[in-house]
Every structure is written in C-alpha cells, then in structure tokens.
C-alpha cells in the first residue's frame, strides 16, 4: 500500500545528523549516505522529526492558501486550538469575523462537533459491547501509532469517526449552499495545528473519502487572520461550543467532558507509548477511557501552532471556563436521533500495518531473530545512532533483515581491531625471513618452527628476563654471547640488524648450538615495525 505523508524530507537540507532518528516513535527513519531516509510504511506523520530538525529539512505539508478559491463556498473549520493562538482580548467571534475577511464564506466551530462526540461516546458506552479501556479516536497520529506499533490494541479504539470528520459533515449540512437543489460547490477547510491531521484528511483510515476538502497550516494562516482582526468586528455564529468542547484543545479536556472519573489523559507521543506499553502489559483494565494526544499539551502543542503551548493552554483554559455551561451546546435529542443511523460510526475498520514482521516465513524470522540476538552481543548498547539506526537493537534487526551492512558500528569495529592486535599470525621463522627479506646466516631446525612472539633489546639481561621460547630476538650485537643467551631462553632465531656482521666465533657457536641467525641491512626500528605489521594482523 502506498501511504500519503504530510511530513516530508527536503533532502538537500539534510546533513545526516541523526537527531530525527532518535525521536521517531516508530523508528521509521535511518541515516544512509549522510541523509535521512524514511520508511514510508512506518511513518505516522506525528511531526516529531519536524520539531527537532535544526536544518529545517523535515517539512510539514498542508494545502496552499490559494485553494480557498477552488470552491464556490469555502467553509473554515476552526478547531478550538486556533482561538488559543491569539491574545486574551481576542474572542472566538473576532477570529470568525477575521476569517471571513480572509476569504472564507462560512465558518464552523469544530468544538461544537466535539461536544456532539462527547454525547456519541456516551451513547456508544451505553449501547454497545466494549472492552475497557477505550481509546479516543480523536488524535490521528495516535491511531496510526497503534496501527504500526500496537496492532493488538486497535480493538480498544472507539470505532467512531474523528471529531474533525464529524465537524466537516455537520458544517456542510449546516451550510445553506449544501443541498441537492444548489449547484454550488462547497469546500470545507480545516485550520490544522498538526501535519498528522493533514494526512488523515488526504488518506482517512478505512479508505472512505474525507469530508474535509483541504487543510491549511495554522502557522500559514495565522498572520493573515491576525492582520484582519478588528475589535469592532465580531460575528456570532449559530452553533458555538460551550467550555466543554473548547477544552478539547488542551490535554485532559476530552477525557473530562465524559463526566466519569475512570479516565486517563496522556499527551506527548513518547508518554503515550509508555501508557500503551502498560496496557500491553495487561494493566489499566480499571480505566474506561484513554485520551491520548501525540503532542505535548494536546492540540495546542501541535507542530504547526504559533503560540507557546503553555501560554496557549492558559488562554484555552480561561476561554473554556468563561464559556462554561451546565449543558452541552449540542442537543442530546439530535445525537440520539442520528447516532443509531450511523452518523458517527467509522465506515470501515482500522487495519493494522504489518511492518513489524521480520520475515515472510516463521522459520526465516526465527533464523533472523537468532542472528540478531548474536549480533546484539557484539554491539555496545550505547544507542548512539552513529550507524544510522536509532538503537543498537534496531541496527541488529536492520542488519539481519538486509537493511544495513554489518560494518556500520564504529565501536564494534574498534573492539574487533583491538582483539586482532592481540592475535598473532601463524608463520614460521623461515616464512617471516622471506617476507621481510632477511638473509639467513646460519641455518638451523628452529627456522621451521612457528614464531610465537618477538623481543627487541640490546641488553642481554633484559632478554634473559623477558624473551621466551619461540620468540624472535632482534639485536645489533654480534659477539658469541648472544648465542648463549638465545640457547638459554629458547628463542627460535636471532635477527642482527643495521648491516652488522656476526663474528666468525658467533657463527660457529650458532651452528654448534643449532641457533639460526638472520641478518639485514635494515635498522632495529624498521625490522620491529615490519615484524609488528606482519605478525599482529
């Protein structure tokens, strides 16, 4: 399946720094050839990479503002997070008025639809069979996180459409231009705080076409609206939410709206993962509803927002408190009438994305698992990301799945080199003499023995103390004493360097005692260096 992605990489800007690979909650990014590479089937468009990228290489795509003109009637779908982008003196009615001045014919308050969702959730919990805890379908990045990483938990998601889809449906039906008799083309545009929603609009789960026709980035449209804001121009619209619907913009708002205490609200994608992990461990069965938001703080913390999320949170809280009401704006009768007709239900089911499988066959996967565990033993566990994979474990998996070469870990390479330094190459004295171009002055049996090591010294007592059986001894001495030392220590050959000629008595003694003597014009330094490079590889 081909996936649409609103979060994309501008390759020319990427420097391969590995910041993004470490924050990606589904481990969908690798660095290859000094550039980030995305694994399309794993990406959930949460925008975490976009947030951490210093190079602005990750970009979040929304629609260009010119698209307003694509329809005869354009409706702006305003989520409550947008109101929180402006100062405390700016009321939602000012924003609505400014949006019309920007070019929208109509404006719909998405928070109103969120109140309809609250009622629909209650209907669902009352009338249908379900297993606790239920997970909110509102955050598209969280829904996709479950598809990719927690397919077993998909059944916990309330099988209702997202509040934004319901909002667009309501907005179009509400619009005067939306009828069979009218030939006007009506388009609904969301002012989105996140790229995840853009993807959900372009490619909704279940495959049905979205009711939303396009999405504008909150940060793109903010300036235009800001300029049009006028304290004297404030327009009331028919269906405005109360504080309850408005509070959905910040984390905890949706959970609170249900009016039960058995709710859990979690925000920030990595925090969401910790809760899902607990759920997978069999916990949280006493919780009825989980509100999970990919962005820290909730939708006000979306990657495409303008205002600091903590400030936006205060604004949103003040507005929802100011507009608090005992009952929701959406009439219960309306929901009771439309719910049984399937107005809120998701068209299809939410399918898992099968990206975790290690191999197409179980046997192959087991083989890979085994090789992966073995490779893991050789990796340092630093999770440094220098290999281009986010963790050592992921790297091991990449290697056995053929997604990465097995030489990318610098630490493993260094450890191997160090190990190799201690290993001697198996070679006889004669082979070594040939390799290094040493002349044989005295032949003896031990020339065909394997070299165990080497000792370079011109102090005889030092050689007596340190050199051992099977070593090669490098020296500049030529007198007969060296044969005695060689015999006592059992070195397999003496190498006399710097073109020094052994004395005749020395040669005679060597023959008698069976100690081979090799000579060379090279210095001790050079011979030692070459011996090292040949033997210690």
């Amino acid at each position: 399946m081909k996936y649409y992605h609103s979060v994309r990489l501008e390759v020319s800007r990427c420097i391969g720094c590995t910041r993004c690979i470490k924050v990606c909650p589904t481990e969908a990014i690798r660095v290859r050839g000094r550039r980030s590479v995305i694994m399309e089937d794993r990406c959930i468009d949460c925008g975490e990479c976009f947030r951490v990228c210093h190079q602005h290489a990750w970009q979040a795509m929304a629609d260009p503002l010119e698209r307003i003109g694509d329809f005869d009637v354009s409706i702006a779908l305003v989520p409550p997070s947008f109101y929180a982008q402006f100062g405390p003196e700016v009321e939602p009615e000012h924003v609505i008025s400014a949006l019309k001045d920007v070019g929208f014919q109509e404006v719909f308050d998405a928070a109103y639809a969120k109140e309809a969702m609250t009622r629909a959730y209650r209907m669902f919990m009352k009338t249908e069979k379900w297993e606790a805890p239920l997970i909110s379908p509102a955050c598209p990045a969280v829904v996709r996180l479950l598809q990719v990483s927690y397919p077993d938990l998909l059944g916990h998601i309330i099988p209702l459409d997202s509040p934004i889809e319901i909002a667009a449906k309501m907005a179009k039906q509400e619009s005067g231009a939306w009828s069979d008799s009218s030939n006007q083309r009506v388009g609904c545009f969301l002012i989105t705080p996140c790229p995840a929603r853009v993807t959900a609009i372009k490619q909704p789960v279940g495959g049905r076409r979205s009711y939303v026709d396009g999405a504008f980035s909150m940060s793109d449209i903010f300036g235009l609206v800001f300029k049009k804001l006028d304290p004297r121009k404030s327009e009331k619209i028919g269906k405005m939410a109360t504080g309850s619907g408005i509070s959905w913009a910040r984390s905890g708002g949706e959970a609170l709206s249900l009016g039960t205490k058995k709710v859990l609200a979690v925000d920030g994608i990595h925090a969401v993962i910790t809760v899902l992990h607990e759920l997978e461990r069999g916990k949280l069965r006493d919780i009825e509803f989980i509100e999970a938001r990919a962005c820290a703080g909730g939708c006000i913390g979306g990657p495409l927002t303008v205002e600091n999320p903590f400030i936006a949170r205060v604004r949103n809280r003040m507005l929802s408190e100011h507009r608090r009401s005992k009952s929701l704006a959406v009439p219960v009768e309306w929901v009771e009438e439309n719910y049984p007709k399937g107005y809120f239900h998701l068209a299809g089911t939410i399918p898992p994305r099968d990206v975790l499988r290690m191999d197409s066959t179980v046997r192959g996967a087991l083989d890979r698992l085994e090789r992966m565990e073995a490779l893991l033993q050789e990796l340092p566990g630093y999770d440094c990301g220098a290999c281009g994979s986010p963790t050592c474990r992921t790297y091991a998996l990449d290697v056995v799945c053929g997604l990465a070469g097995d030489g990318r870990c610098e630490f493993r390479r260094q450890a191997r080199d160090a190990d190799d330094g201690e290993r001697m190459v198996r070679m006889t004295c004669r082979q070594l003499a040939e390799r290094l171009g040493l002349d044989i002055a005295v032949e003896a049996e031990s020339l065909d023995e394997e070299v165990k090591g080497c000792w370079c010294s011109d102090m005889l007592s030092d050689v007596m103390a340190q050199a051992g059986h099977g070593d090669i001894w490098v020296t500049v001495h030529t007198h007969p004493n060296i044969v005695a030392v060689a015999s006592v220590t059992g070195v397999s050959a003496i190498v006399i360097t710097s073109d020094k000629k052994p004395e005749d008595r020395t040669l005679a003694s060597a023959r008698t005692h069976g100690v081979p003597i090799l000579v060379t014009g090279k210095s001790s330094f050079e011979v030692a260096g070459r011996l090292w490079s040949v033997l210690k590889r």
Partner: protein
Amino acid sequence: MTTLTFRVRGMDFTNAGEVGAKLKRILHQIGFEREVTRRAAVAAYEMEINIVIHAYEGEVRVRIFDTGVEIIAEDRGPGIPDIELAMQEGYSTAPPEVWKMGFGAGMGLPNIRKCSDIFEISSEVGKGTHVRSVVLRG
C-alpha cells in the same frame, strides 16, 4: 530455535508484566498466529507474576521453535504444598497488599493450563517451583 532468558525478582512490581509484553512483541515480529501469540504471552505473563508475588527470585526461559513456544519458569521460593488445591480457580495465597494491586485472584495457574497444550508443574516446599508450558501452533 531461539532461547530467551528473563530474570525475575520477587515483589518487583515495577517490571512485572515485562516478560509477557516482550514475548508478545517478539512472537508478533516472527509472525506467529495471533491466537498462539496471545496464549504464549498470557502463560509467560502469569508465570512471571507468580514469581513476583510468591517467590524470592526466578527465571523465565523461553524457547521458540517454528512449531511453537516452550516456556519454563523456575523459582527459588516457598514452593506449593498442595498443587491440586493451587490449580483450582479462585484459590490464592497471595498477600492482601498484592490483591489491592489487582493481582492474586487465584486465576494464574489455571490460566496457564488453559493456554497451554502441554502443562507441567512440580514444586518442593521450602525450595521452589517449576512450571513448564508448551504452546503449539495449529
């Protein structure tokens, strides 16, 4: 065949459930059927929780074959005096503070048996308990 070993400490509720979750993930990655994965994960989970609640320390060893999973839990602990009684649903010797955390309903061992195609248990009072479960694919 792959062997995985998990060390489990008694009363370590911070990590309790980790073995089941990890095994579930791995079996999913390997491509085991959902039902097989679920049964193996539940068995491993219950074995781990039993060690956490009742024993001082122990180990859960998992061997994965292409035909199924073998899970062995071995602990150093008080042991079970009457295994037949312990196998009855609802029978529990878990302390009340554990019960408050949502464990100790007396369903652990019966649950493991229910999930297993082969189930063995042996125990020595004052020494420890050994549980073996084999979950087979179709």
